């Protein structure tokens, strides 16, 4: 299969997944709650005001019509109106997403170089103390819930040592340095989880590449260890790590709900959390679907990047 066909097939799959996801989100948001008007007004409201609200919100129309209305507007960037704020959802999503991207970017910048280096270091010293320490830290870091690591970090660095601010919200008009300073502590719980996965993948990838025939060939033809490591081992070991990094983007988005709630940071995670708490279904559906779209698109990009970087796929196409 050529690269073009491969990309087309992968993109078609992504579109199909997106469509199914939209049906799932719609079903969860519109069918599961039963009567939305009743859910908003509470058990004491009389039947007529419930029916009235349902009519105002357009909930008395057939399901297929409601689904089409919702999804076609979403695609056009118009994500219906929030029940809680009585205002269009889209601006809330956009500003929350911008804030989350900032937090996520800090987490990534802190994590990626450190975990890649730790993974390679562990693989080069496989079985020795350094390897064991990195592996154990990685396993524990990846398995602990973010709120648990977050609370310990707040206590140690924010309350006891007082070296980092515990609030993720910086004063208005703060410069980039101050903003980053406030983002370090909230990004650390995410960093720990990402470190666990990424270091483990990088370690496994490096070990595999070290044992591969092409590495032995490179060593036997007299290349210096440095060249073998950078040109032959790391290039191959990076491939799986790239895929994992992209998958972890989706994970990061889930972690944001917890971390942003813990640090009261106004991102997409706390937006989804607030919408869930207020039973603001349009906001909740739009937020959840946005997260799903980001996840599917990053997955698609990771696969494309993998195909472009992997000579077996790239050259297989032109052969």
């Amino acid at each position, binding site marked *: 299969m050529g690269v073009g066909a491969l990309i087309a097939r992968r993109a078609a*799959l992504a579109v*199909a*997944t*997106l469509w*199914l*996801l939209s049906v*799932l*989100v719609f079903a*969860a*948001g519109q*069918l*599961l*709650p039963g009567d939305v008007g009743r859910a908003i007004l509470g058990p004491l409201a009389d039947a007529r005001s419930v029916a009235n609200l349902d009519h105002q919100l357009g909930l008395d129309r057939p399901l297929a019509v409601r689904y089409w209305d919702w999804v076609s507007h979403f695609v056009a960037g118009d994500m219906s109106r929030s029940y809680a704020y009585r205002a269009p959802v889209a601006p809330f999503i956009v500003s929350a997403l911008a804030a989350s991207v900032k937090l996520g970017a800090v987490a990534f910048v802190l994590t990626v170089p450190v975990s890649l280096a730790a993974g390679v270091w562990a693989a080069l010293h496989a079985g020795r103390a350094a390897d064991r320490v990195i592996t154990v830290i990685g*396993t*524990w870091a990846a*398995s*602990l*819930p*973010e*709120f*648990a690591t977050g*609370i*310990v970090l*707040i*206590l140690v660095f*924010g*309350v006891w040592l007082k070296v980092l601010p*515990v609030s993720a919200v910086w004063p208005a008009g703060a410069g980039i340095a101050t903003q980053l300073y406030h983002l370090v502590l909230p990004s650390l719980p995410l960093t720990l989880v990402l470190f666990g996965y990424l270091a483990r993948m990088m370690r496994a990838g490096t070990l595999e590449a070290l044992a591969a025939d092409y590495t032995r060939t490179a060593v036997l033809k007299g290349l210096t260890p440095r060249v073998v490591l950078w040109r032959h081992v790391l290039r191959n070991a990076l491939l799986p790590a790239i895929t994992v990094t992209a998958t972890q983007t*989706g*994970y990061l*988005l*889930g*972690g944001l*709900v*917890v971390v942003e*709630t*813990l640090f009261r940071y106004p991102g997409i995670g706390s937006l*989804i*959390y607030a919408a*869930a*708490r207020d*039973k603001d*279904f349009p906001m*909740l*559906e739009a937020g*959840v679907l946005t*997260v*799903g779209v980001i*996840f*599917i698109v990053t*997955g698609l990009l990771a696969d494309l990047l993998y195909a472009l970087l992997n000579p077996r796929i790239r050259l297989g196409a032109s052969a």
Partner: protein
Amino acid sequence: MSGRWRALLRSGGFLTGVLIIVFWTACALFGRLVAPFDPFADDILSALRPPSAAHWFGTDQLGRDVLSRVMVGSRDVLTVAPLATGLGLVLGVLLGLLAGYFRGVVDELISRTIDAVLALPLVIIALLALTAIGPSTATVILVVGVIFAPLIARTVRAAVLSERDLDYVAAARLRNESTLWILFSEILPNVAPPILVEATVRLGYAVFAVATLSFIGFGIQPPSPDWGLAVSESYGLINGGIWWPALFNTLAISSLVIAVNLAADGIHRALNA
């Protein structure tokens, strides 16, 4: 096989994990009998006292003894997480067997739905579902179990794919065995090891997920002494220097998560050795 299990019993990580799980299970069952105070008794006049000789872990915002609550706090998570994993296992094995055995349209349909569910982080899809049907102990089991089903189905499907074309399956077909018999009596026993590994790993995630959902208020509900819930009720006090209710409950839940992961890791190693 017996050699593998003997190696398992010699593995320090596995034993540590099991010991911690047994300890918290014993606390869940008998904690109330040995707890120094009644975990549910309010005493508002002695609220938020720091750790002391009488209250080793201090008291919470209602004056309840934190140590006594931590001791019985494992009860709900140790019920909900295994039940959710069990539900996910039943559904996932069923879906995975069907998708792997029949291939074609059935497989395509099941696999695409699995992808769609997996396109969302567990916490977010659980939040959506729990908002819609209302959070309670039963709905948390249901939602986490249903979300686990596709994850488990993916593992089972992959295992079934490598079994379905083997001779013993063809032989069973020639003997005119029913499809149900082939699926559950021929294939299922042969794919049991990866399912066992998946189940233990899932249990770790279930504890993680239930604790996280309780922390954001969509899991186990008050007045349960559940650890995640207790952290959610007390983390806002940390900035004011009141660290004990949040910290001790955080350490408790962390020890359980790590214990389940150590045990799962041991089983994984033993079965893949």
